[in-house]
């Protein structure tokens, strides 16, 4: 067989979500030749933004934690060479999140564990023991995840010990009989699409700790992470190409991938391949016959976390003041029940935030309201497909559906901010289908495979696959979110780079 003269990359990375970009950044700076292939017109996966009528909207990242000096994400970003370039704004020290209930009561989350505790004590003076235990447990659990503490210890980087079986709802309920306190502690569970019977406490703990260690917003949108990452990758000689949808692969006799095939007939050769695409879709791309049935069945039967309905409103100029905090609004008595909604009372739980836009400063340019939505609700239009890269058309009744749902959300919003409708200039929204098409998973799932405290091992996905040179990365490996995905990328790269040295580099960054 004659070989054609095209270049063989050390690493071909499929998907430019943060996981793909982080792997590219790590590997390119280690001197490997790297190419990232992105199907969309914009890189970044959940970091993608879009603009309507001059306003910029985030789709996935509304705020980020662990950015105080010396914290884990701070170090990771410094290692990536992007920390100084990011435009970030620290959220209110004494309330970065507000948990708000139907009775109008508001509970502030303050930054830093001490501040967090003392603020909670003002609402629940008799619950000091529960609050103390809760915070201590978070720290204890987080300590069992070495990478989150920039440590290398033990063989298994994904999970450590018996912690993965603890259920978040049950644990919090065990701390106190005070229902309101339980609800307040779990009040931001939209961050991980918490499910009462399933969500492990470690998921809750890692995420809570992260935000308590420095909560920030990205000024003018979260896409800057992707943009800065891509610059560093290019500086290290890595390449990133858009409009490159990988559809299949070629194999050699040893069962190794030789090259991937793109939709337009181009092929890309590589020694190693990293998929930053959902594992189920990865199996579709690389060929069902290449995977063991038992693996395939497990992966494809894993339940994905729920999808979302994301409403963006833009305001008339200087009418709505910027909020340097987020609101988690619950219209029901149990913060775990909003995910399992009834049509009549939807939306019961939602997240409200105003992006910080330098141009409008003191006033908010827009607001994002994010609530749960099952993919079944938009299933009837699921045969349509539409992204900027691949324009298509959806039916008029789909548009009608969106308009109705938007109206429901705005009506709810009026309860939180009376008179807000007057200030709204434009409303638009993203549905599970939007997320499916831009993220490239099957159901628009927000956070990928749902972690389950009942069978933690089942939802664990190894970075290695049966194909010797195919590896996985992304939110399904360790955890979702900026920090979770970054950690996942390091786990993926430990297969290629000495982990002790790599972690040392992060610490020294």
């Amino acid at each position, binding site marked *: 067989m*004659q070989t*054609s*003269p*095209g*270049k063989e990359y050390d690493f071909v990375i499929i998907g430019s979500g943060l996981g793909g970009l982080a792997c590219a950044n790590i590997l390119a700076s280690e001197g490997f030749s790297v190419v990232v292939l992105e199907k969309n017109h914009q890189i970044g996966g959940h970091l993608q933004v879009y603009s309507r009528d001059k306003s910029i909207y985030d789709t996935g990242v509304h705020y980020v934690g662990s950015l105080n000096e010396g914290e884990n994400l701070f170090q990771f970003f410094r290692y990536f060479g992007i920390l100084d370039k990011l435009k970030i704004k620290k959220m209110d020290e004494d309330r970065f999140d507000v948990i708000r209930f139907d009775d109008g009561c508001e509970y502030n989350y303050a930054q830093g564990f001490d501040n967090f505790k003392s603020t909670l004590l003002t609402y629940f003076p008799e619950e000091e023991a529960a609050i103390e235990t809760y915070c201590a447990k978070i720290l204890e659990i987080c300590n069992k995840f070495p990478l989150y503490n920039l440590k290398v210890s033990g063989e298994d980087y994904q999970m450590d010990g018996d912690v993965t079986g603890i259920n978040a709802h049950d644990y919090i309920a065990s701390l106190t009989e005070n229902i309101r306190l339980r609800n307040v502690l779990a009040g931001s569970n939209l961050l991980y699409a918490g499910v009462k019977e399933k969500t492990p406490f470690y998921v809750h703990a890692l995420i809570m700790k992260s935000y308590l260690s420095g909560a920030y917003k990205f000024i003018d949108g979260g896409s800057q992470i992707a943009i800065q990452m891509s610059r560093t990758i290019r500086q290290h000689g890595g390449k990133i*190409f858009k*409009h*490159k949808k990988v559809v299949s692969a070629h194999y050699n006799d040893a069962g190794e991938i030789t*090259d991937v*095939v*793109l939709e337009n*007939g*181009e*092929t*890309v*050769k590589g020694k190693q391949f990293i998929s930053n695409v959902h594992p189920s879709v990865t199996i579709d791309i690389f060929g069902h016959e290449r995977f063991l049935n038992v693996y395939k069945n497990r992966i494809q039967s894993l339940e994905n976390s729920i999808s979302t309905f994301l409403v963006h409103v833009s305001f008339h100029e200087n009418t709505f003041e910027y909020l340097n905090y987020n609101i988690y609004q619950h219209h029901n008595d149990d913060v775990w029940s909003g995910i399992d909604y009834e049509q009549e009372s939807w939306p019961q739980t939602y997240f409200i935030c105003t992006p910080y836009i330098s141009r409008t400063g003191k006033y908010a340019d827009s607001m994002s309201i994010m609530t749960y939505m099952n993919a079944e609700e938009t299933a009837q239009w699921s045969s349509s497909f539409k992204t900027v890269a691949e324009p298509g058309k959806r039916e008029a009744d789909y548009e009608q559906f969106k308009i109705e749902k938007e109206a429901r959300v705005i009506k709810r919003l009026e309860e939180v901010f009376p008179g807000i409708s007057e200030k709204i200039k434009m409303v638009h929204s993203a549905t599970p289908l939007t997320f499916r098409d831009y993220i490239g998973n099957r159901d628009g799932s927000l956070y990928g495979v749902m972690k389950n405290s009942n069978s933690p091992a089942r939802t664990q996905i190894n970075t290695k696959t049966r194909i010797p040179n195919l590896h996985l990365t992304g939110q399904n490996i360790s955890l979702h979110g900026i920090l979770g995905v970054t950690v996942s990328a390091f786990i993926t790269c430990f297969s290629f780079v000495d982990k002790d040295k790599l972690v040392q580099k992060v610490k020294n960054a």
Partner: protein
Amino acid sequence: MKKVDVVVIGAGPAGTVAASYLKKQGYDVTILEKEKFPRFQIGESLLPCCMEHLEEAGLLEAVKARNFQKKTGAAFMRGEKRCEFFFSEQFTDGWAWTWQVKRADFDSTLAEATRAKGVEVNFECEVLSVTCSATVQTLEYKSADGNIHNIEARFIIDSSGYGRVLPRLFDLSKPSSFTPRGAIFSHLEDINRTEEASNNIFVHSFDNNRSWIWAIPFSDGLTSVGIVGDKEKIIELAENDGEQYKTFIREFEDLNGRFKNSELKFEPRHILGYSIGVKKMFGEGFVLSGNSTEFLDPIFSSGVTFATASGLLSAKMTQKHLQGEIVNWQKDYEEVVQGGINVFRSYVSGWYTGDFQTIVFAKEIDMEIKNQICSVLAGYVWDQSNPFVKKHDTILPTLAKVIKMKESRGAE
């Protein structure tokens, strides 16, 4: 007699780039242009590489202000097959876009911007005779009023393009080894322009790779449509005011009726046997740049880029010369320019043998190879780290052979 540092013959892209560059270095430059601008010219599709030259000559901003049609790539078609290159995906680190221009507007813009820099740009001045020596060059020219003038210069840059002023006067022309071909073209209304067709040049190959059509959209809604083929074929298409040309572009299947009812903005024009070379590109007191050196073929839109590249390089060498340095014109000018021409010559040959088409229309194409070819198509033909530049003379036939073998094996 008027004395200047440099006389540039011709106010096209090569001449204006050379003149602007030298003016920027503080030299006294005069341009003698035979025509009155604006004047029609073909060569309407630029390559990204020329942006660097325009920038270095200080002409880029003036062109930007004209809002010409942005060009981000090029699409090649043959029947059902289609291969689109995007300059953002190229191997060489370079410009990702350029323009498609009506040359009348583009060249006028360059000339006006050059004049604004303090270069004397004289239109309708035809050079009649030239005397060269090591230090003093004299030119005799006729101005618009019919008067004869003399001008003395320390050096001459001939950017006269098809006018071939010095090659004619000094007998420097050399016939081309290419099959004599011709082109017939006009500007058409393009109301059926599709979204995907709106930006970039489209090239349709037909007639077993012997002929092709260009469609170059402009920002004003018009599109330049030309047919290139063997000389005989073009003569046939041009007969009776281009009757067959008109029928062809209206009926040609691969254009899908894009120009079915389009109005022509002028009667089709044609040129024949445009390929020509030179024996040498420099001599005592003068250098040739742009199309007055060698012109190959319009297929890869390389004309303007060669003009600006050689215009800029000739100006840089001239500056050295004027500073009293010994310039190795052979090595530092002619071989560099010729090197670029030779790369394109391989691709032009590869186009008419069909090797280029075999590669780009293959069922599968290595992305990296495509990106390397893309850099050649973007005009970066001096990047020796690109194997499709370095091994230009062998790589297309070799690769085409591999692909043919693979595809015939696949068909079995």
